[in-house]
């Protein structure tokens, strides 16, 4: 029997808000829907934060109940709050609450206001469930519900054709990864006989890989990683995330920057012991992460939509985290996940504030917004500095940890690629900052105004995180966070390296300076550079043509196959059914003919024959006695002749 306790309430409270909002929101609650969502979120905070701090202090919480009987065992659902989930829990409740407060201002006046908050609450509930879930199945369920919320919220403005397409694409692309994830989990179950995280860790810690060979476990790990590729928008399934920017901006901040997309990284962290048990899978993870980090940053260089730049930046940073995990840097990857959530959410909310104030999204129509939107501008620049990796902001420490991991573990190539990516990151972020907030206003139709306090206050709240949260993982606190996270798992430790830090700072400052030179001083340079490196520019601007390639080589053949099979169904299979029917009808007709002309014909023929014979014989039957006597006499005569052998 399950003992109810407060931790169950953490995901249940937002779920209650979802139920109430979806059923009664539109009719009764209206603008109060936001308050319901925010209040439940704050309540979740109030419950979750003390729990987190207890875990930071060394506690560990777990509880479960029987959900389903599988095979001869029982699948138990429940929660597990260990250092890893506590860290994420901490981040999700805070960022989630701040974004919802912001959204209550941003979405003001939307006709489907309560629907929006219903979806967001459902999302919060799913994300919190995912974070504290104790087994892969509950994890997967929450994972899919988040996908649903993402779908609903990307398509929130579904009247727009582009939004309708984007949500379709997002759901399907991530689901492709999810199917792989599910297969991976099934394989894992076959190997280890459990879905439970603690039991898996226990079994693997004892070196028990089940009855099946290690290669089986390795395959399962790769399949599980497919889930990450889909959800965390890793190459080659990253194409959905930029399109997902069709959703309202607070959604982009919450789901497509801070929490849901990070769940993929969390998945790798959660299954870290599995990957550690089969280290040959690690290079796959690193490679995918590294390609993603570099490619997305390269694309971000030339984009002009403020949200898309941030989206590619998110993809790139997620690639960073995945790379770190692939190099066994559990602490480094998770650390970056947490810090990134704060400053990337801040960037998105800032972008939302800009969009709210200007009603445009193309940075070429913006400019000189610093004076008109001071709160937005300052917080946005702080977040950009954090993302670029300028010390002592949080992004610097976490990025430095990843670079250090690459450098110290001997992944030299990865180190240089990541460093180049860091340089590009600093460049594209400050290209965005300089074009948007500085210079002159470019479009006379844009009349910018600062957003209301309900939107700017959460920005400042997030600034706190973006500035301070690097400290617990920095050398200043002796990497407390990494120690805390990984004390249970064998985990290589590296001493801080002055070389790495110097490189990192040079990359950040260099990128910012270059952006300043090009976009503040010599604005015509940008065009001539684009002209000089035309192929590279087009490759970046057209996102490596991946959408086109997918459409031509995957989507079209796929739908064509459907058409072909349908025609096959109608013509061949149904055709043969109808053919059998027609054949039976034809056979019936033939039989009918035979019946009519042969069988019945024979009968009729017999009749006719009888009639005919009759007509001959009846002539004898004249009724005259003389005739009969004559016949009798002739007969008698014939008989006598026959008998006496006279002839």
């Amino acid at each position, binding site marked *: 029997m399950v003992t109810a306790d407060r931790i169950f309430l953490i995901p249940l409270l937002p779920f209650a808000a979802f139920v109430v909002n979806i059923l009664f929101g539109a009719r009764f609650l209206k603008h109060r829907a936001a308050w319901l969502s925010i209040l439940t979120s704050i309540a979740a905070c109030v419950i979750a934060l003390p729990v987190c701090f207890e875990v930071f202090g060394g506690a560990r919480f777990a509880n479960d109940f029987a959900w389903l009987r*599988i095979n001869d065992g029982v699948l138990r659902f429940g929660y597990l709050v260990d250092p890893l989930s506590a860290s994420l829990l901490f981040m999700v409740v805070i960022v989630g609450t701040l974004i919802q407060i912001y959204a209550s201002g941003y979405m003001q006046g939307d006709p489907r206001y309560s629907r929006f908050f219903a979806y967001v609450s459902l999302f919060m509930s799913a994300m919190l469930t995912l974070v504290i879930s104790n087994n892969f199945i509950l994890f*997967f369920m929450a994972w899919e519900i988040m996908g649903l919320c993402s779908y609903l919220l990307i398509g929130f403005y*579904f009247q727009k054709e582009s939004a309708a397409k984007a949500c*379709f694409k997002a759901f399907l692309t991530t689901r492709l990864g999810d199917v792989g994830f599910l297969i991976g989990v099934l*394989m894992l179950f076959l190997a280890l006989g459990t879905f439970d995280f603690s039991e898996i860790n226990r079994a693997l810690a004892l070196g028990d890989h089940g009855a099946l060979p290690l290669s089986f476990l390795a395959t399962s790990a790769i399949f599980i990683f497919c889930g990450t590729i889909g959800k965390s928008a890793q190459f080659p399934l990253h194409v959905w995330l930029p399109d997902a920017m069709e959703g309202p901006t607070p959604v982009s901040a919450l789901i497509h920057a801070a929490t849901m997309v990070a769940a993929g990284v969390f998945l790798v962290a959660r299954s870290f012991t599995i990957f550690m048990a089969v280290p040959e899978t690690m290079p796959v993870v690193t490679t995918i992460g590294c390609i993603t980090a570099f490619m997305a940053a390269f694309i971000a260089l030339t984009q002009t939509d403020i949200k898309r730049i941030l989206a590619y930046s998110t993809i790139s940073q997620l690639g960073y985290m995945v790379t770190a995990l692939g190099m066994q840097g559990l602490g480094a990857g998770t650390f970056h996940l947490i810090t990134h959530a704060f400053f990337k959410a801040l960037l998105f909310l800032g972008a939302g504030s800009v969009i709210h104030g200007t009603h445009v999204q193309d940075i070429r129509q913006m400019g000189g917004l610093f004076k008109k939107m001071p709160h937005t501008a300052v917080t946005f620049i702080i977040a950009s500095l954090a993302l670029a990796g300028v010390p002592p902001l949080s992004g610097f420490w976490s990025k430095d940890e990843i670079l250090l991991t690459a450098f110290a573990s001997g992944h030299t190539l990865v180190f240089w690629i990541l460093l180049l990516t860091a340089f590009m990151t600093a460049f594209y972020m400050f290209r965005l900052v300089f074009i948007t907030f500085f210079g002159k206003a470019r479009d006379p139709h844009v009349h910018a105004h600062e957003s209301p306090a309900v939107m700017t206050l959460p920005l400042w709240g997030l600034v706190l995180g973006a500035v301070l949260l690097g400290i617990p993982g920095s050398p200043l606190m002796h990497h407390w966070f990494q120690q805390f996270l990984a004390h249970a798992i064998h985990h290589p430790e590296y001493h801080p390296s002055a070389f790495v830090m110097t490189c990192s700072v040079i990359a950040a400052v260099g990128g910012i300076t270059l952006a300043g030179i090009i976009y503040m001083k010599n604005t015509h340079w940008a065009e001539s550079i684009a002209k000089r490196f035309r192929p590279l520019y087009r490759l970046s601007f057209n996102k490596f043509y991946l959408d086109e390639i997918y459409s031509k080589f995957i989507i079209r053949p796929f739908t064509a196959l459907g058409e072909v099979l349908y025609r096959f169904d109608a013509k061949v*299979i*149904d055709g043969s*059914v109808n053919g059998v029917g027609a054949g039976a009808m034809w056979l019936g007709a033939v039989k009918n003919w035979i019946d009519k002309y042969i069988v019945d014909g024979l009968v009729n023929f017999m009749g006719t024959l009888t009639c005919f014979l009759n007509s001959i014989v009846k002539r004898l039957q004249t009724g005259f006695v003389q005739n009969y006597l004559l016949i009798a006499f002739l007969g008698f005569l014939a008989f006598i002749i026959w008998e006496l052998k006279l002839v």
Partner: protein
Amino acid sequence: MTSHLLSWITFTPLIGAFVLLCLPKRAHDWIRWIALATTAITAGLVCLAFPLFRASESGFQLVERAMWIPQFNIQYLLGMDGISFPMVFLTALISIMACLGSLAHIRVKGGREKEYYFLFLLLETGIMGTFLALDLFLFYIFWEVVLVPMYFLIGIWGGPRKEYAAIKFFLYTLAGSLFMLLGILAVYFGSEPRTFDMTLLASMKYGLVFQKIVFLAFFLGFAIKVPIFPFHTWLPDAHVEAPTPISVILAGVLLKMGTYGFLRFSYPLFPDAARWFQPAMGVLAVIGIIYGGFVALAQTDFKKMVAYSSVSHMGFVLLGLAAMNADGFRGALLQMFSHGTITGGLFLLVGVLYDRAHTRDLNDFGGLGEKMPVYAGILIFFSLASLGLPGLSGFVSEFLTLLGSFQYSKLMTGLAAIGILLAATYLLYMIQRILLGKLNPKWSSLPDINYLELSTLVPLMIFILGIGLYPKIILDYMIPTLDGLLKTMGGAV
């Protein structure tokens, strides 16, 4: 009443049907309410079985036995176990929903309500009997009884090509059941002493060759009903032409008679043949899943799309059956139940839209989410359930099925997973074409879903959600029987 509960469950609809016959043709309201009340009373009787049925036991309960034709040792034998109980419950539930759905629908269709509801209730008796009969002869009779009202319901109240569809349905199913009849006779003459009693027959041992031949004969009968590829082409026609409530019964309950037949007769009577045919069943299941999915993707007719999605989803049931292990069986039986509720709901939703727009062409819609927000929400709910979203019942059953089939064949499971992806594709593509995008001005005056229609859908949603969130409740009823079946088949539980 409880002493002959199963008989009451089976024949209450028939009693209602005869009451209808005594009413004058013009007493429309009376006809409707008596029909509805009959389905409700039947459902109430099914609910009475809950306290009497001991879920933790395998084997038949509430058995009723009487000699019927002693010369041939034919018995009137009814019984219920963890396999038939969920199906009986599903039948009662879907019948109420379909009856509610008929209230508005048949009136629009231009009357003859008396005949309609008479046939409708006759159909329910047939289905209930099929699920409860334990004597093969009795089973066969109920099985055939289902055909007749269905034929008329499609042929009279159907769409433009109703005659073609009705005849196709009738002949196709009849052809299958004739093979089954031969199989039944073979079993009868192969038993010593001769009997149709399936509880006795299950304990007899037959030679492998005999088993294989008879298994095939039964297979044809059941496969056409499920329908299993390549015997499925009657289904889209029948669905498209049938009136909405009849489509709901067809997809919700009738298809399950096929897979039920496997669990009830083919497997326990011919376990060795079942093992021998296991790979073939698995392959057919996977073909059905993928093929149905692809063909559904190519549809432009909403109803036909749902019909083909049934082919794909029933493939999962077959896959679970083919796995022949505990998880596979549980997944299959749960999938039978959840597919009944989900696809039943989807057909109701097709009907809601068709009644308003008088077209089912997916390309003709667009942007209805704005005009019909409640309808949109419910359509999305059922689509998500159908594509196996966790938290809804479709996920649990597909998950268990895959878990089971994975232990049997990794390749087949991997291929079946493509079906999950396909389901997401065709369902979301449908949603995109109906609900999202710009509103087609042609539909700017469509009213949202009304309370009567809501009342047919909400109970289904409750079951879908309930099972999805806490599947243990319903599985506790199924597991002992299924484990028992597995044991008699010689498998490990």
